[in-house]
């Protein structure tokens, strides 16, 4: 399996790349941050150290997925590095501004849509073109959010971008089914990531509470009583890109500890 994972320098993306590598995939890690090279190097050393070896590859590339030229070039370089692409995981995303619609600038609104939605579109377009040309099927997993299924005051741009990702993915699933390429959305809930901690710091500042109080409030709202981890998401990605999910396409899989029982 040859996989591209975006937003892979840290957090969920790094955990996803690690799981796919552990399951035997060659992986290209993309991120807008140059830190991704170090993440890939650590992963490559870990896979080799775990007795993987087998000539397995994990390489990092810095690229901005929201840039049309850069994202296409990144897919080209990934194909050169690992010989093709069977799996694309679009995990790159930003939280966007924590502001009401009436206080959000056009530039801020466009930025979150550019990264989360347009970036996903650009990567899907480039990678699906390669997959169709290969003629051997494939799987795409795009990161939506529980906040693409329900609204949040102060998060309109983020919610709109993630809802957009879901229907982009499901339309893509219908277009790509004849080529044996499946496309699904994962909708994480509250994850233990820097993006989520940033949001809680912002909420704490706005509401005159502490960060720890915000963390506890979120945990209390989750039926399973905890934040999700990179491992929680990586297990679902591993299933969705495997033949075990061979009849699953065009779906949103909620991975949220029961916070969204809809």
């Amino acid at each position, binding site marked *: 399996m040859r996989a591209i994972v975006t937003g892979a320098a840290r957090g969920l993306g790094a955990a996803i790349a690690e799981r796919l590598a552990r399951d035997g995939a060659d992986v290209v890690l993309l991120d807008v941050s140059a830190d991704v090279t170090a993440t890939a190097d650590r992963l490559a050393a870990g896979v080799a150290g775990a007795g993987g070896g087998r000539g397995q590859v994990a390489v990092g590339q810095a690229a901005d997925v929201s840039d049309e030229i850069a994202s296409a070039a990144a897919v080209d370089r990934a194909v050169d590095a690992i010989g093709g692409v069977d799996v694309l995981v679009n995990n790159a995303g930003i939280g966007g501004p924590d502001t009401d619609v009436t206080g959000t600038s056009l530039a801020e609104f466009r930025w979150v849509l550019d990264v989360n939605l347009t970036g996903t579109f650009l990567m899907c377009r480039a990678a699906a073109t390669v997959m169709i040309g290969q003629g051997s099927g494939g799987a795409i997993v795009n990161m939506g959010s529980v906040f693409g299924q329900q609204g949040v005051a102060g998060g309109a741009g983020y919610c709109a971008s993630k809802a957009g990702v879901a229907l982009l993915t499901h339309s893509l699933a219908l277009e790509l089914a004849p080529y044996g390429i499946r496309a699904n959305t994962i909708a994480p809930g509250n994850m233990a990531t820097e993006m989520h901690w940033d949001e809680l710091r912002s909420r704490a500042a706005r509401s005159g509470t502490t960060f720890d109080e915000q963390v506890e409030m979120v945990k209390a709202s989750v*039926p399973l009583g905890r934040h999700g981890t990179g491992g929680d998401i990586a297990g679902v990605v591993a299933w969705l890109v495997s033949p075990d999910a061979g009849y699953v396409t065009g779906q949103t899989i909620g*991975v949220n500890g*029961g916070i969204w029982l809809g």
Partner: protein
Amino acid sequence: MPGRMAGRRALVTGGAGAIGLACARRLLAEGAEVVLLDRNADALSAAAGLGAAPVACDIRDPGAVAAAVTRAAGLLDGPADVLVNSAGVYRIAPLLDLTPDEWDDVLAVNLRGTFLAGRAMAAALIAAGRPGAIVNISSTAGLVADAAEPSAHYNASKAGVLALTRQMAAEWAPHGIRANAVCPGVIDTPMLRMMDDPAAGAAYLRTGVPQGRLGSAEEVAAAVVFLASDDASYLTGATVPVDGGVTAI
């Protein structure tokens, strides 16, 4: 993934049916111990050839379900921590011809049976202070209507299973019990009626199923065992269609 379910104790209702049997095979292959429940004792003895223990049980009967869950705990040397509710019946009848007895019969197996088995399993697990996972077999018929193959009682029972699953998830999460539902689409099993008219069935596969083919019981079982496994550790109350994209249209 060999070993993913090692040490797990699984109970599969409707264990003699195509999907139940596929789930049992997959659970066994991944290292779980398995007890099959079914009301059809002959089918169960055939299933026992797999290496799973059979227990005859009418899933509609609260006393029989309680006794079967206790018997299974004895066979498994502990309370089941995986429950797959795949006991189900399918009937076709337009609403104007559907009798109240037919309605009750379908609801009794598909919805009441899922409730009874889930309650008995969870009670034993909670009493033992152990975590676990429930996977209920619903259907895409619980998500969308179908005028060509009218079965309001079946569809309502499967939509009911989704609501029941969410409630199990909400009430039992504090006990570490996850509950999720799989919605199979057109799956190649003896229960499938769509291909009775091969030309019409083939036409539907072309126009109504993005992947253009029937699914297999094994593909449903792969989703079920994923949901029961630790790979799905943060999923609860989820609805997972396994339908070749039918519900994406």
